[in-house]
């Protein structure tokens, strides 16, 4: 009894009861499609995040920050614990060959800008010239903050295209204008030296579209960090963290390890509670993977339950089918079908129900995943591994839940089966 004949027979029997077949498949369809959907979605999110991270330095961007030693005796920071400008300069010189750019953000203030009768929100970000490399921003008029601006603590600023258009009626028109913002209880004035535009990645635009004010207004304004220090009334600069973008060909992790131990040996050896720790873009990715892993696990459990319920549904329908076709089984046996032929006929029927359900589930899953992808703005192919897994899983369900009914059919007594009304 060959496989091909069995498959044809199974299709004929399913065709005669289409509605029932589809309803039976439902559990399998839901289970498989949720697995495929979540893996497709995972790929999409991963791709978007990689795009976004890459536009902001990507895996070349690393951070060094102060944090508690394992054997700490106090759990708060003091001024002496902070990373000083000298330290950063020292590291920049010592590791000059590895470093493409040092990135510093030395203060962040929320403020208001008066526009007609409104107060618009702005965030004043005190940065160094290297900061632009870790954003998705590009200068479209004027220039970015340079070393001399920083050294002097000049009251200059770089504003966004949207801000320029709204406040000054155009990008070119903004250059040289006075930008006045109220923060820390006072009005502060800056001269506009440049206008930036944010090159949005798909993920960023998707997140931005959730923010209604973003349409004609950006909140970020860049000034030299020393300009903020002057406003604070301080003189020495110290930071909680700084970033570095490593040169091409430099392994970020081993670079970080080196810098971390260099800094700790040199400046934090005698500190009782504080040390330097690093973070890489890769570790951000790993965190994202971890989150996706948890989400996937939850979906996998739901999908697994749905597949088991689906499998029981298949078993139920196969039992009904065996009962309905008792007479047919009797006739087949009278015609000389061995038990094994009857058994494989029903198992193959059950496998085919599950496989069709599996395929519909895969298509549905890809579709749903990509609809979500279109909303996020990125489409990604589903993972072939997940598809192979889904197909083999549905086949396994077919065999597992089809075996019992098929075996029951195979063991029917031919005479009783023939007498069955």
């Amino acid at each position, binding site marked *: 009894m060959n496989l091909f004949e069995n498959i044809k027979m199974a299709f004929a029997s399913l065709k*005669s009861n289409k509605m029932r077949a589809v309803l039976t498949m439902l559990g399998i369809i839901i289970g498989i499609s949720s697995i495929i959907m979540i893996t497709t979605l995972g790929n999409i999110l991963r791709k978007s995040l990689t795009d976004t991270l890459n536009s902001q330095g990507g895996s070349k961007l690393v951070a060094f920050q102060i944090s508690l030693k394992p054997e700490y005796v106090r759990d708060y920071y003091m001024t002496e614990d902070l990373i000083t400008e000298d330290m950063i300069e020292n590291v920049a010189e010592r590791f000059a060959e590895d470093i493409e750019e040092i990135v510093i953000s030395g203060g962040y203030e929320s403020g208001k800008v008066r526009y007609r009768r409104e107060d618009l929100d702005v965030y004043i970000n005190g940065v160094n010239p290297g900061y632009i490399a870790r954003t998705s921003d590009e200068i479209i008029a004027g220039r970015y903050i340079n070393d001399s601006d920083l050294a002097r603590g000049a009251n200059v600023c770089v504003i966004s295209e949207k801000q320029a258009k709204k406040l000054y009626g155009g990008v070119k028109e903004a250059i040289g204008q006075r930008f006045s913002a109220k923060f820390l209880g006072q009005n502060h004035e800056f001269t506009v030296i440049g206008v930036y535009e944010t090159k949005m990645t798909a993920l960023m635009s998707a997140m931005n579209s959730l923010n209604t004010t973003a349409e004609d207004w950006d909140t970020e304004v860049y000034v030299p960090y020393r300009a903020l220090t002057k406003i604070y009334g301080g003189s020495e600069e110290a930071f909680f963290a700084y970033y570095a973008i490593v040169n091409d060909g430099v392994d970020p992790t081993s670079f970080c390890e080196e810098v971390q131990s260099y800094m700790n040996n040199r400046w934090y050896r005698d500190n009782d509670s504080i040390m330097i720790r690093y973070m890489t873009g890769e570790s951000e990715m790993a965190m994202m993977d971890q989150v996706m892993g948890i989400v996937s696990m939850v979906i996998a459990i739901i999908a697994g339950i749905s597949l088991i319920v689906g499998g029981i549904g298949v078993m139920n329908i196969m039992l009904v089918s065996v009962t309905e076709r008792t007479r047919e089984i009797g*006739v*087949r046996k*009278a*015609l*000389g*079908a*061995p038990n094994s032929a009857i058994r494989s006929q029903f198992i193959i029927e059950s496998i085919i129900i599950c496989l069709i359900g599996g395929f519909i589930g895969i298509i549905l899953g890809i579709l749903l995943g990509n609809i979500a992808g279109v909303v996020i703005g990125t489409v990604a192919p589903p993972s072939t591994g997940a598809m192979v897994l889904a197909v083999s899983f549905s086949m396994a369900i077919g065999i597992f839940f089809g075996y019992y009914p098929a075996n029951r059919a195979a063991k029917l007594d*031919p005479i009783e089966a*023939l007498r069955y009304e």
Partner: protein
Amino acid sequence: MSKTIIEMKGIVKSFYIGTPNELEILHGLNISVPEGQFVSIVGASGSGKSTLMNIVGALDRQTAGHYSLDGIDITKISDNELSSIRNKKIGFVFQTFNLIARTSALKNVELPMLYAGMPSRERTKRARELLELVEMTERSGHMPNELSGGQKQRVAIARAMANDPAIILADEPTGALDSKTGRLVMDIFHKLHKEQGKTIVLITHNPELAEETDRVITLSDGSIVSDRMLKGGAAE
């Protein structure tokens, strides 16, 4: 002398064995049927005709006694060997036709050959020849529910002939047909008997049809009460 196809000695069949209401249906039957004989079995309802036929057809095993079919002792063989014997040695024709639903006439006829492992092309060729023999060529692609009772029974006879069995076993094959159609079916049995020399065992309630055959065995309450040879039937 031609060889013996059915050789039964002291066949007993009981149901509910080992329980207080054990029931003996067949009480030690001795039947011997030579090759090429057309035998009919008659008897009142409940006399044990179908029970006997199930044993002859290797669908069931006797409780006691000895049965050999076409030289094979089938007293002590496995279920799978029984399947194989049914497949190759026996062609069943049922009162209710028992064609497989949603399966064309041609595919129905192919089925025993499929179970015998015959290659597809050969199978189809032989199935077409058999349908021609029962004058059903035109309907070969039809599904059972598109056929009349007589047409179904002709397809069923073609199917019974598929693996060129040693015996055709027919349990009231005309029972569900009107007399005219029943006549047609009987003519096919006569044709198979005369032209191909088939051994045929026919169970019937109709004494007229029984009189057309070579030999009439009458059962009553599970015992043979008469065994008559008719016209030119081969002597026992």
